[in-house]
C-alpha cells in the first residue's frame, strides 16, 4: 500500500502549518469529554448491465471533514466538504457550541498519523486501478452464463461496485489514525418467466477484497447458477401457509435473524437510555444454552470488518451471548463512558457527514454439534428457510420481521415443495429461547448486508449454522 499518512495533509489547501493550527482547535474546553475530526476521501465506481448491455458506468468522489464535540450525553456535530483550515475551524466552532465554556484550552500535541495494528484487508490488486473493459467483461460474462443456465430467463440485471475509502481520525487524546478501506460488491438478479408466471432470483457477493477475488471464473459461475436456480425454485413455489409453526433456518445469510432479533437490541445507545427490550438484562438468560453469539469485526476480508472503528478504536470479537446468558453490549466511546465501560470498537458512521453510533460489524452464532440433516429430519410440519431478503426490528417492543426469499414446506422431515416468499415475525427477547437445535455447519453470509439505523447505512456481515426455532409466526396466504 502506498503511504497514506500524508494523504490529507497533501489535500488540504494552504500550508501544513495552517492545517496543524486547525487541528490544534480540537483542544478541549473545560466541559468537553471527547472530540474528534474525521477526514474522509472516498472514490466509488459502478457498472450495470440489463438487456444484455452494459449501459451505465460511473464514478463518484466524496470528501469532507466531520467535527464532533461530546459533552456528557450531548453531541455537537458539523461537517464541511471544503478541505481548508478555515472551514475545518468553522465546523469545529459550530460543533463546540453544544458545550458550555466555549474557550479552547491548549492546542493538542498531535501524534504522527499511525496505521492501525490490524491489517484485515491488505489489497494488492485494487479494482479501481483495473482497466474499464475488464470490469465490463465481467458483466457481459454474467449475462451469458445466466442465459445459458435456462431459456426461461427473460431478463438479467447485474451490477459491480467498488469503493475505496481513506480516513484520518484526529482524536482528542492527540492520536491520529489513518486507514484505507476497500469494498467490492457483485450483484446478479434474473427474472424468469413461464407462461404468465414471472419470478425473480438473485445472488450477491462482496467483501473487503482484491479485484481478482470478485473476477474469478469460479465465483462468477457460482453467482449466476445461484441466481437462476432461485428463480426456477420460485417458478414452482406454492402459496405459503400462515400461522405459528416450527422453522429450520439454513446456514449463512439467515443469520439476519441475529442481527434483527438481538443485535440492535444490544447496541449501547438504546441500553444506556433504557429503551431496548434488553436493557438491564446482563447476566440473565436470553437464549437457549445452545446459543453463543459474538460480534466480530476482525474477520479478514469480510464486509463488516474494520481495522479500527470510526473513532480509531481497534475492532474486536465481543461475546454478546454465551451459552444463552447475556454477556455484553456493543459500545462506542460516548455510550461506553456514560455506562462506565470501554468501547468495544463498534463506533461507526456512514461518512464524514454523519455522526458516530454503536453499530454491529459481523454478527455470528458459533456452531453447535448437531448434523444439519438431523435438524431438518426432526421437523414434523414447518418451513425450511434457506434464504432471506431484508429485516427490521422495533427495539423497544422487541418485535422483529425478516422476509424469506427461498423456502420450502416440510412434513415428517421431508421437503415437499417450495413456498412463496413470506415474512416471519417474532419477539427478539423470546426467539432465541426457542432455539431447539444448533448445527455444526456455521457459515458466513456471502457479503451483501447493509444495515440502516437512524438514516445511516453501513456494511455488515452475519453468520449462522443451521438452526431449528420453534413457534415463529409465518406470514403466508393460506
Amino acid at each position: 500500500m502506498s503511504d497514506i499518512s500524508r494523504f490529507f495533509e497533501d489535500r488540504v489547501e494552504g500550508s501544513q502549518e495552517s492545517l496543524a493550527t486547525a487541528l490544534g482547535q480540537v483542544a478541549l474546553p473545560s466541559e468537553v469529554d471527547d472530540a474528534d475530526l474525521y477526514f474522509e476521501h472516498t472514490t466509488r465506481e459502478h457498472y450495470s448491465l440489463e438487456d444484455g448491455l452494459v449501459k451505465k458506468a460511473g464514478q463518484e468522489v466524496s470528501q469532507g471533514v466531520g467535527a464532533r464535540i461530546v459533552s456528557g450525553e450531548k453531541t455537537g456535530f458539523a461537517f464541511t466538504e471544503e478541505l481548508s483550515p478555515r472551514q475545518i475551524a468553522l465546523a469545529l466552532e459550530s460543533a463546540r457550541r453544544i458545550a458550555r465554556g466555549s474557550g479552547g484550552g491548549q492546542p493538542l500535541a498531535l501524534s504522527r498519523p499511525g496505521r492501525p495494528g490490524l491489517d484485515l484487508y491488505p489489497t494488492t490488486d485494487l479494482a479501481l486501478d483495473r482497466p474499464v473493459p475488464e470490469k465490463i467483461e465481467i458483466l457481459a460474462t454474467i449475462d451469458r452464463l445466466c442465459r445459458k443456465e435456462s431459456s426461461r430467463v427473460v431478463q438479467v440485471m447485474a451490477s459491480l461496485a467498488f469503493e475505496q475509502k481513506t480516513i484520518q481520525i484526529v482524536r482528542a487524546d492527540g492520536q491520529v489514525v489513518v486507514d484505507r478501506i476497500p469494498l467490492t460488491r457483485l450483484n446478479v438478479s434474473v427474472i424468469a418467466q413461464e407462461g404468465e408466471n414471472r419470478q425473480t432470483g438473485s445472488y450477491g457477493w462482496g467483501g473487503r477484497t482484491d479485484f481478482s477475488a470478485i473476477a474469478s471464473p469460479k465465483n462468477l459461475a457460482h453467482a449466476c447458477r445461484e441466481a437462476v436456480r432461485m428463480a426456477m425454485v420460485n417458478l414452482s413455489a406454492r402459496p405459503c401457509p400462515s400461522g405459528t409453526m416450527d422453522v429450520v433456518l439454513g446456514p449463512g445469510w439467515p443469520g439476519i435473524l441475529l442481527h434483527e432479533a438481538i443485535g440492535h437490541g444490544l447496541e449501547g445507545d438504546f441500553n444506556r437510555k433504557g429503551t431496548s427490550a434488553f436493557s438491564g438484562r446482563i447476566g440473565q438468560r436470553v437464549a437457549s444454552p445452545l446459543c453463543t453469539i459474538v460480534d466480530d469485526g476482525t474477520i479478514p476480508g469480510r464486509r463488516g470488518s474494520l481495522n479500527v472503528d470510526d473513532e480509531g478504536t481497534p475492532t474486536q470479537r465481543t461475546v454478546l451471548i454465551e451459552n444463552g446468558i447475556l454477556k455484553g453490549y456493543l459500545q462506542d466511546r460516548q455510550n461506553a463512558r456514560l455506562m462506565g465501560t470501554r468501547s468495544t470498537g463498534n463506533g461507526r458512521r456512514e461518512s464524514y457527514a454523519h455522526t458516530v453510533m454503536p453499530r454491529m460489524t459481523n454478527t455470528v452464532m458459533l456452531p453447535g454439534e448437531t448434523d444439519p440433516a438431523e435438524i431438518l429430519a426432526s421437523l414434523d410440519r414447518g418451513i425450511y428457510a434457506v434464504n432471506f431478503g431484508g429485516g427490521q426490528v422495533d427495539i423497544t417492543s422487541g418485535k422483529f420481521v425478516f422476509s424469506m426469499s427461498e423456502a420450502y414446506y416440510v412434513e415428517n422431515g421431508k421437503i415437499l415443495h417450495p413456498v412463496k416468499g413470506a415474512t416471519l415475525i417474532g419477539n427478539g427477547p423470546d426467539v432465541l429461547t426457542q432455539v431447539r437445535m444448533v448445527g455444526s455447519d456455521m457459515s458466513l453470509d456471502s457479503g451483501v448486508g447493509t444495515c440502516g439505523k437512524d438514516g445511516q447505512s453501513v456494511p455488515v456481515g452475519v453468520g449462522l449454522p443451521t438452526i431449528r426455532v420453534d413457534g415463529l409466526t409465518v406470514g403466508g396466504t393460506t
Partner: protein
Amino acid sequence: MNKSIPSTRPSTGLAKGSKINLEDGEEAVRYILEAARAAGATSADALYLSGVEETVGVRKGEIEKVHAAQSRGIGIRVFAGQRQSSVATSDFGTDHLKSLVERAVAMAQHTAEDPYAGLPDRILPPAIDPDRLFPEEGHIPSRDELIERAKTAEAAALGFDSRITNSEGAECARSRTHVVFGNSLGFLHGYRKSSYTLSCSVIATSKDQMERDYWYVSGPLWESTENSEALGLKAASRTVSRLGARRIKTGTYPVIFDPETARSLIGHFAGAVSGSALYRNATYLKGREGSPVMNPCMTLREDPFLSGAPGSRPFDGEGLPTRKKTVVDAGVLQTFLFDTYSARKLGRQSTANAVRSLGDGPGVGISNLIVEPGTLSQEALLKKAGTGLLVTELIGFGVSTVTGDYSRGAFGYWFEDGVILHPVSEITLAGTLDEIYKNVVDRGSDLEIRSSINSPSLLVEGLRIAGE
C-alpha cells in the same frame, strides 16, 4: 426564478486550481457542461445540489444533539454518441472537475451503444414558476428557537400520562436546498426549497411491556411546526394506546389501513407503474393499461404543482416540464410513468417522470401522488367494516412489485361492531397487491398532504392475517 435560456458565458477565464463560485449553482453547471464538451462529449446533462441543514435534538428536557451541515455536490452524465457514463463529486476544485469529466468521457467509450440513450429530443421551459410551488420563507428560526420547539413537544408528551416512562427525544430540523439542472441543449433552470420537520418519540410501560411510538409534522415553512404541543400529545397518546397489545387468531379479516399505512400500500403501486419496471418485465402490471387494476372506488392522481408538498417540481430530472395526470381512474390504469429512456424503448412519450440523483442517470419516479378521498370518517369506516383490524404500523420488506406478492409485519387495533377493543402486535398481513387493491371497498375522508404519497384510510376486504 424563471430564467430564460442562458448565455454561453465562457468559463475558461477561471484560473487553474481556483474554485467555482459556490454561491452560484448555475455557474457550476455551465462550467461542467463546457468541460464535458471540451473533453469530447457529444451531449451531457448536469445536476447541482447544495443545502444547509440544522438539526437539534432534546431528550428528557436537555439538549442532546446539535448538527449543522453545509453540503454541495455536482453530477454529470456524458454521452459519446449513443454511449453514456456519469460521475459526481463534492470536490469543486476545477482541476479535479476537469479530470473527472475526462474520466467520464473515457468510461463512456467502453459502455454499450444503446439506440435509446440520449437527452430528450428538445427543451421546453419549466411548467410553472418555481416561486409558485415553494412559498417564500418568512421567519427563519435561530438554533434556540428550534430547541425551544423540540422541548415543548417533548414536555407535552412526557406529561401526557403517568405510563409514559421514557423518551427517545424530540427533534426539530430546518433545511434549505438549491437544485440546478442543465443540459447541453441549453436548458438551465433551478429552484430553492425549504423544509421544516418536528418529531417526537416516547416510551410507555406497563408491567413487563414496553412500547414506543412517535409522530411528526413537516412542511415548507417554520409555521408548519408551530403546533408543537399538539404534536407531543399525539405522539404520547399513540404510544400509550399500544400498551396491552396481544396477538389475534390466524384468519381472514377486513383490514383498515390508516392514512400512514395506506400511504405505504399505495407506494408499492407507484413502483409497479414505472416504465423502467415495464421494459424490464419487472412489474405485475405489465399489459394492464386500460384495464382494471384497483377497485372502481379508487382514483389516483399525480400532481407536481401542490404548493409546498415535498414532491413538487417545475421540471423533471431531465428538464422536461412536469404535468398533472390521472394514473388510475375509477380503478382503471390510465398510463405507466415514463422517463425519456423507458418511453423511447417502448415507443411511447415521456410523462415527465424522470427523477435524478447526483451519482446516476435518470430513473422513473413520482412527484406527488394522491388517492382521492371518500366521504366516510375513520369511525364510520370502522362501523362499515364491523369486525376486523385497523392497521397503524407496517414493518419489513416483504413486497415484490415483480410478482405482486405482499407479506409484512403489522401493528394495529382489533375492533368489533366498529368499536376498538385492544391493540394487536406480532402479526403479519399477506396477499397479493393485485387482490389487495381490488379489494379496497371504501376510502375515508381523512386525506392529509403530509408527504409525496398521500392517501385517506382504506378499507380492504378479506386479508390474510397470521397470528396465533
